[in-house]
């Protein structure tokens, strides 16, 4: 057994495999499939200060090797999370990370303050990259100065590990990553979804109620890998890589490109046990190739 441990900010992860926000519910839904305490960490649904109904139906379109979603951050708000959901999750032996979303800086800050009270939430992932809400999310993530502003404000109220989730819908993702780093982020995770669109030619209408939505799945993997590689060379804080990871081989590619940990999103829908298989697969890869620990392959791409 290779040493799979990695460190993100103050977190010691037992392995580099986490779940991506919005694709893993609150984790409980997966307890029929495997023991979720095996995960390095699990990032729960995008959580906002106030409850949100999300967008109208239809919210999903299948695309070549991927899907578009337009969920729009449906959730019952941070107080419901703290009161009703957190108590059920807090004793699971893995890192519970909350994805904090919003539209205004004050909301992000207030939501974070509430989360900061929850002892067993060991980190937040600041979602400044959701393409599916009208004002918000993505607007912050597509401009270095506003990304810096929001990270600064949240950092002030959050002493634990702060991960900033970046949008791929930008000219230069390293610029945003550096802005987050400069304001004290402990890590950046990327990529969130690419902004895309699907059209029903017969009905002559967009498939999604919101016209555009977020693209995820293997189709985005080449773009995600490239951005992770660029970002890992541009910042000193650890990078968490995601986007289209379907198996251990994809995960290894992200680690080689420079990611210290990875997240699995859409693949959970197709194989609920994919995360566990990925942990096992990384371990086997390391053993087969004679690496004693996963840290040996992080950023080890030979150019």
């Amino acid at each position, binding site marked *: 057994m290779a040493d799979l441990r990695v460190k993100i900010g103050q977190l010691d992860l037992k392995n580099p495999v986490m779940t991506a926000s919005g*694709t893993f519910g609150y984790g409980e839904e997966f307890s029929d499939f495997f023991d979720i305490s095996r995960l390095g960490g699990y990032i729960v*649904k995008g959580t906002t200060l106030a409850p949100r*109904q*999300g967008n109208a*139906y239809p919210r*999903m*379109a299948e695309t070549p090797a991927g899907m578009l979603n337009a*969920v729009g951050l449906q959730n019952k708000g941070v107080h419901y999370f703290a009161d009703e959901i957190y108590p059920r999750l807090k004793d699971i032996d893995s890192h519970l990370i909350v994805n904090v979303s919003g539209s205004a800086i004050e909301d992000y800050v207030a939501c974070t303050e509430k989360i900061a009270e929850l002892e067993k939430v060991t980190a937040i992932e600041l979602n400044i990259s959701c393409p599916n809400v009208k004002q918000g999310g993505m607007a912050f993530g597509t401009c270095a100065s506003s990304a810096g502003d929001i990270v600064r404000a949240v950092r002030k109220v959050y002493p634990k590990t702060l991960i900033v989730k970046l949008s791929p819908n930008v000219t230069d993702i390293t610029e945003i990553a550096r802005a987050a780093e400069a304001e004290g982020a402990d890590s950046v995770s990327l990529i969130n979804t690419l902004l895309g669109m699907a059209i029903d030619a017969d009905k002559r209408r967009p498939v999604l109620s919101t016209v555009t939505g977020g693209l995820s799945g293997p189709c985005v993997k080449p773009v995600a890998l490239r951005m992770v590689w660029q970002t890992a060379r541009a910042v000193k804080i650890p990078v968490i890589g995601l986007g289209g990871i379907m198996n251990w081989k994809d995960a290894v590619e992200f680690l080689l490109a420079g990611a210290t940990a990875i997240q699995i999103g859409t693949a959970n829908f*197709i194989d609920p046990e994919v995360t566990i298989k990925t942990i096992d697969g990384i371990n086997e890869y390391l053993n087969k190739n004679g690496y004693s620990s996963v840290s040996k392959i992080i950023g080890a791409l030979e150019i």
Partner: protein
Amino acid sequence: MDLSVTENSSLNENCFLLKLTSDQKLPDMLPGQFAEIKVEGSPPTFLRRPISINNYCTETNELWLLVQKAGDGTRTMGNLKKSDTLNLIFPLGNSFSFPENNSKSVLLVGGGIGTAPMLFWGKYLKEKGYSPNFLLGARSASDLLQLDDLNQYGTVYTTTEDGSYGEKGLVTQHSILQDKNFGFIYACGPKPMMVAVARYAKTRSVPCEVSLENTMACGFGVCLCCVENTVNGHICVCTEGPVFNINELLWQI
């Protein structure tokens, strides 16, 4: 769970019946529930495909799926052969409810491939002492599926749009709806049909449940892609449905 195909029979040009089994005992399941199916060998089919449980035979440890070829995913499933393996996540979703009143005569309405969940539900109702009546609507005689199977569990009424079998017209125009009273109505099929059935039920104050479709990415409640807008807000069809009481829905009925 990997199941193995015991039989794949073509029922007409577009529909086939898959029978599946396993070495292990299949998990308990209820009528109205569905399975999420991984289709292998179909390049455009990235996500699993939701298919209702058509029948579950505890004796033979068999699960039946009644499938219509809608696109490449279901077409590729149609090529499965005896002994092939199919990966299913199941059972998923809620199930139909029993009538709360004492009325034993209930109506199960299926439009097109919407009959799929009705065989299992009719069988189950019969076992519990109810008298199911099946009302099926289809375009043409060859689109009426599993009539013999359904006949074992209740009376079968049919309509076809071209009049080639049963009464001519839409399912909601069948004379039985005027002639008989039912204690509960269950419907599955195209939305306009379900709306019409719901309207009929509401007018007569008969309790009514419908089984909804939606575009699903996961099928087990984690993606939030499959919502129906209800009196309780956006609700996932895959976990809190697919069966809904019409009173919960915000349909114009």
